[in-house]
C-alpha cells in the first residue's frame, strides 16, 4: 500500500488559518479557558472559564453540555452547521499519581439518537488538551475541504491545515500524523494524541472516535474509543480528518495541584491495593474485560443471537484465557501515564483475512467484553480470529462495535424470519455465525455501498425501513430491535433485573452500561428487593457514575478492584474507600475540603442538566424511556421455551397464575402484562426519587435546588409540566 510520506504530507498540508495564544499553566486542575473553532469561517476564539461555570458544571462532560447548550438552538439537527463537537478532559484528568486518569468526553447532537449524546474514551487527548491550555474544545461549522486541526501546546499555536493526502482510516492516519507532528523519537511521539474516525463515518451514523497514544515499548500507535452515538460521524460531517494535540512536557505536576501529598496518599493506597489484589480478583492486568464472558454466560446474561438467549456452549471459545494467550505483554498496558490497572491489552501480528488490507499484519487493540458480546455471541460467531478481524475493521473504519453488532444481529434475525432474503441483501446470506458476511457488511459500510449501508443506519432506522418497504410486523420488530432512543443496547441481558431494565431505559443518552450497571446487585446479589431500593439505586448509581466523566477519570478503578475495607462497609456496592480516594483527589487538586456528598452534588447538577437539555431538543421525556420488550421478558415462543421452568415458576409463584394447560402464547402474554406493569411502576418510583415529574422532566423545584435554574432551563421544565 502506497501511503503519503511525511515529506509528502508536509508539502500537501497548507495552513488555512493559524491562531496564536498565550501559554499559561494549569491551576488546580483547570486551564481556565476553552477554545472555540468556527470551521466554516476559520475563526478561533478563546472563552474564559469562570468560577460559576466550575461550581455549576465542574468540568469534562459538564463543560461540554454547557457549551453546547449555549451554542445550539432547539431546532438544530445533528448535521446542521450549528451543531458542535465538544471535547473535554476534566479537572482531575491528567494526574499521574492515581490510575485511570486519562479519559476525555465528547458531546454532540447524535446522528443516531438525534438527541444529546456523550461518549468517553481513554488515550492521551483529554490531558494533553488541558495541558496545552484548554479545558474544552468546541468545533462548530463545517470545513470547505478535508482538514486536520493541530493544537500545539508547546508553541501556543492552533492551525487548521488542508489535508488532501492524509488517509482517513485510523490505523494509517494516526501513524501518519504522529510521525508528521511528533517526529521519529519516542519523546516526540508520546507528545501526540490523534483523534480520528474512519471511512465508514462518511456513510453511516454509528461511528465513533479513536483516540491515540504512542506505545514506545511496542513501537505501535495504540487507540481507545469514544465509540457511542455517532460522534465520529459528526467529525467527518465537519470534514475533519483528525484533531491533533501536541504537548511535550506532561508530568506529575502538570495539573498545578494544591496538595500533592493528599493526591499521592490516594494513589499510594489504590496502587497498593491493585498490586496486592488484582491477581486474586479479576486480574485485569492479564485478562482485561474479556474475563466477563464466561461469567455472563453462566448467569444467562450474555447476549446470544440478538439477545434471544443468554448463554451458549460455545462461549468458552472466546473466554478470557483465549485472549490472555494472544495478548502482547511486552510492556505496560495503561492508556494514560501511571495507570497500574493496565487493562488496555492488544493482539500483535494479526494477519487480516479480508478487505482493503487483506494479508497485512496488524496490531489489534482489545478486544473488550462489549465487542466480544456484540460481534461474537450476539452474532453466533465464536471464532477468535474472526473477532479480531471484526474488531480491527470496526476500529479503523470508526464503527462502534456495540451498535454494529446489535444491528447485524437484528438483520440476521430478520433474515431468519423471512423479512429479508438474498435478493434484498444483495446476495448476502445473513445467517448466524457467518463471519465472512459480517466482514463484508463492514467493508460495505466503509465503501458506502450495498446492504451494509442499510445495516449501518442502525436498528431504529432498519425497523422503519423494513416496515415501510417490506411490510414487516411493526410490533415484532419493536420487540426484537435492541435499541432504546435510537442507541443500540450494550451487551447484557436484563430480563431478570428490573433495575437494569430501568438503568438502560432511563439513561438519558441511551442504553449504555457506563451509566447504570445494576444487574448483579439486583438479579444476583438481591440487594434491591423493593421498588424503593431499586429507585434509590437508580438515583445514586447513575449520578455517581456520571461523576467520572466530569473529571476525566476511568470508572474501572472504582469498581474493578475491591478493597479489604469493603468487608465491613455499610454500603459495599458504593465502595466507600474508593469514594474517599476521590474526595482526596478533588481536595488535593483544589485545596477545598471535600466530602462524598460534595462529589454527588457536582454530578447531580450535570445529570439533571443533561436530562433537561434532551427535553429541550424534543427528547428526554417518558415516551423515550421505553425498552423493546425483549429487554424485559421473553418476546417469542423460542425464548420462553428456552427457560420454560423459570417462566412457569414465576407465573405460579410471583404473578399468581397457574400455567397448567395454557399455551406458550398465553403464558407470554400474561408474563408480558405483569412485567410491563412492573416497569411502569419503576419509572414512577425513579422519576419521583430523581425529582422529576411524571413525564420524566426535572421539576422547577429540582432545578432551583441544584442551582441550574437559568431562565431557559426553567422554561423547558415548565413547557413539560415541570
Amino acid at each position, binding site marked *: 500500500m502506497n501511503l503519503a510520506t511525511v515529506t509528502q504530507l508536509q508539502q500537501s498540508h497548507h495552513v488555512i488559518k493559524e491562531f496564536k495564544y498565550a501559554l499559561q499553566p494549569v491551576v488546580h486542575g483547570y486551564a481556565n479557558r476553552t477554545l472555540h473553532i468556527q470551521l466554516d469561517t476559520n475563526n478561533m476564539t478563546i472563552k474564559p472559564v469562570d468560577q460559576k461555570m466550575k461550581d455549576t458544571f465542574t468540568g469534562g462532560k459538564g463543560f461540554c453540555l454547557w457549551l453546547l447548550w449555549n451554542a445550539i438552538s432547539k431546532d438544530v439537527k445533528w448535521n446542521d452547521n450549528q451543531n458542535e463537537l465538544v471535547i473535554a478532559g476534566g479537572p482531575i484528568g491528567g494526574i499521574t499519581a492515581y490510575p485511570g486518569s486519562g479519559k476525555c468526553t465528547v458531546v454532540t447532537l447524535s446522528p443516531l439518537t438525534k438527541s444529546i449524546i456523550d461518549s468517553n474514551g481513554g488515550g492521551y487527548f483529554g490531558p494533553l488538551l488541558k495541558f496545552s491550555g484548554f479545558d474544552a474544545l468546541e468545533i462548530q461549522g463545517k470545513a470547505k475541504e478535508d482538514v486536520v486541526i493541530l493544537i500545539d501546546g508547546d508553541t501556543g499555536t492552533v492551525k487548521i491545515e488542508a489535508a488532501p493526502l492524509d488517509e482517513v482510516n485510523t490505523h494509517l492516519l494516526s501513524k501518519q500524523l504522529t510521525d508528521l507532528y511528533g517526529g521519529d523519537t519516542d519523546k516526540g511521539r508520546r507528545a501526540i494524541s490523534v483523534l480520528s474516525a474512519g471511512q465508514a463515518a462518511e456513510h453511516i451514523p454509528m461511528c465513533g472516535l479513536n483516540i491515540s497514544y504512542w506505545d514506545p515499548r511496542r513501537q505501535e500507535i495504540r487507540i481507545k474509543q469514544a465509540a457511542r452515538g455517532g460522534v465520529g460521524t459528526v467529525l467527518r460531517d465537519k470534514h475533519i480528518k483528525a484533531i491533533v494535540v501536541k504537548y511535550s512536557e506532561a508530568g506529575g505536576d502538570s495539573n498545578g495541584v494544591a496538595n500533592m501529598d493528599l493526591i499521592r496518599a490516594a494513589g499510594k493506597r489504590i496502587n497498593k491495593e491493585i498490586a496486592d489484589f488484582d491477581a486474586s480478583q479479576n486480574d485485569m492486568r492479564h485478562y482485561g474485560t474479556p*474475563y466477563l464472558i*464466561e*461469567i455472563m454466560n*453462566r448467569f444467562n446474561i450474555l447476549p446470544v443471537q440478538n439477545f434471544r438467549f443468554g448463554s451458549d456452549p460455545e462461549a468458552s471459545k472466546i473466554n478470557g484465557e483465549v485472549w*490472555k494467550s494472544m495478548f502482547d505483554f511486552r510492556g505496560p498496558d495503561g492508556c494514560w501515564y501511571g495507570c497500574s490497572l493496565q487493562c488496555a491489552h492488544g493482539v500483535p501480528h494479526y494477519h487480516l483475512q479480508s478487505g482493503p488490507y487483506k494479508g497485512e499484519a496488524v496490531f489489534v487493540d482489545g478486544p473488550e467484553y462489549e465487542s466480544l458480546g456484540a460481534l461474537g455471541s450476539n452474532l453466533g460467531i465464536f471464532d477468535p480470529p474472526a473477532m479480531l478481524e471484526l474488531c480491527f475493521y470496526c476500529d479503523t473504519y470508526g464503527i462502534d462495535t456495540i451498535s454494529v453488532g446489535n444491528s447485524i444481529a437484528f438483520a440476521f434475525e430478520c433474515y431468519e424470519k423471512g423479512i429479508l432474503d438474498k435478493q434484498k441483501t444483495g446476495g448476502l446470506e445473513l445467517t448466524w455465525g457467518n463471519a465472512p458476511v459480517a466482514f463484508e457488511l463492514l467493508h460495505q459500510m466503509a465503501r458506502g455501498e450495498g446492504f451494509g449501508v442499510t445495516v449501518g443506519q442502525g436498528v431504529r432506522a432498519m425497523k422503519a425501513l423494513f416496515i415501510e418497504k417490506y411490510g414487516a410486523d411493526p410490533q415484532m420488530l419493536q420487540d426484537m430491535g435492541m435499541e432504546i432512543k435510537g442507541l443500540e443496547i450494550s451487551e447484557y441481558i436484563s430480563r431478570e433485573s428490573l433495575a437494569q431494565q430501568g438503568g438502560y431505559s432511563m439513561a438519558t443518552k441511551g442504553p449504555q*452500561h457506563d451509566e447504570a*450497571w445494576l444487574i448483579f446487585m439486583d438479579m444476583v446479589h438481591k440487594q434491591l428487593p423493593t421498588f424503593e431500593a431499586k429507585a434509590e439505586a437508580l438515583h445514586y448509581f447513575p449520578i455517581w457514575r456520571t461523576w467520572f466523566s466530569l473529571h476525566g477519570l476511568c470508572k474501572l478503578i472504582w469498581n*474493578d478492584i*475491591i478493597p*479489604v475495607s469493603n468487608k465491613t462497609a455499610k454500603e459495599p456496592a458504593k465502595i466507600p474507600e474508593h469514594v474517599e480516594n476521590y474526595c482526596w483527589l478533588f481536595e488535593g487538586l483544589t485545596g477545598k475540603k471535600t466530602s462524598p456528598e460534595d462529589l454527588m452534588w457536582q454530578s447531580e447538577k450535570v445529570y439533571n442538566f443533561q436530562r433537561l437539555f434532551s427535553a429541550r431538543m424534543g427528547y428526554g421525556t417518558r415516551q423515550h424511556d421505553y425498552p423493546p420488550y425483549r429487554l424485559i421478558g421473553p418476546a417469542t415462543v423460542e425464548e420462553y421455551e428456552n427457560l420454560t421452568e423459570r417462566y412457569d415458576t414465576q407465573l405460579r409463584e410471583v404473578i399468581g397464575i397457574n400455567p397448567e394447560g395454557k399455551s406458550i402464547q398465553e403464558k407470554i402474554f400474561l408474563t408480558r402484562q405483569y412485567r410491563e406493569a412492573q416497569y411502569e411502576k419503576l419509572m414512577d418510583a425513579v422519576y419521583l426519587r430523581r425529582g422529576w415529574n411524571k413525564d420524566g422532566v426535572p421539576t422547577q423545584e429540582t432545578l432551583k435546588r441544584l442551582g441550574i435554574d437559568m431562565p431557559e432551563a426553567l422554561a423547558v421544565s415548565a413547557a413539560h409540566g415541570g
Partner: protein
Amino acid sequence: MVQVEAHLFATFKAIAGKNKIILEVLPGQTIEDACFALLTSLPMLRSHWLDMNGQLQQYVHVYLNQSDSATLPNGMLTELQDGDILDFIPPVAGG
C-alpha cells in the same frame, strides 16, 4: 458422603488450573466447610482466597445452585445436599 460439584470461574480457574472439581463432604456440612475442603484439594488458591486470619476474603463470591450464598437464609452455613453445585466467582462490577 455428600457429593458436590464445584465450578471455578475466570481468575480462580486460572489459578487452580482447572474449572471443576468434585468435593465430598460429610452430611450436615456447609458451604463454608466445602470452601475449606476445596482449598485442601487446591492449595494454590489459599493465598488468594484467605485473609491474614484464615478467613475467606469478601471478594470470593460463592453461589449455591446459582444463588448467591449471601442471599440464603443461613448464608455460608447453609447445609449442602447431594448433587449441589457451587460456583466460585471473582467480584463482578461492570464497566
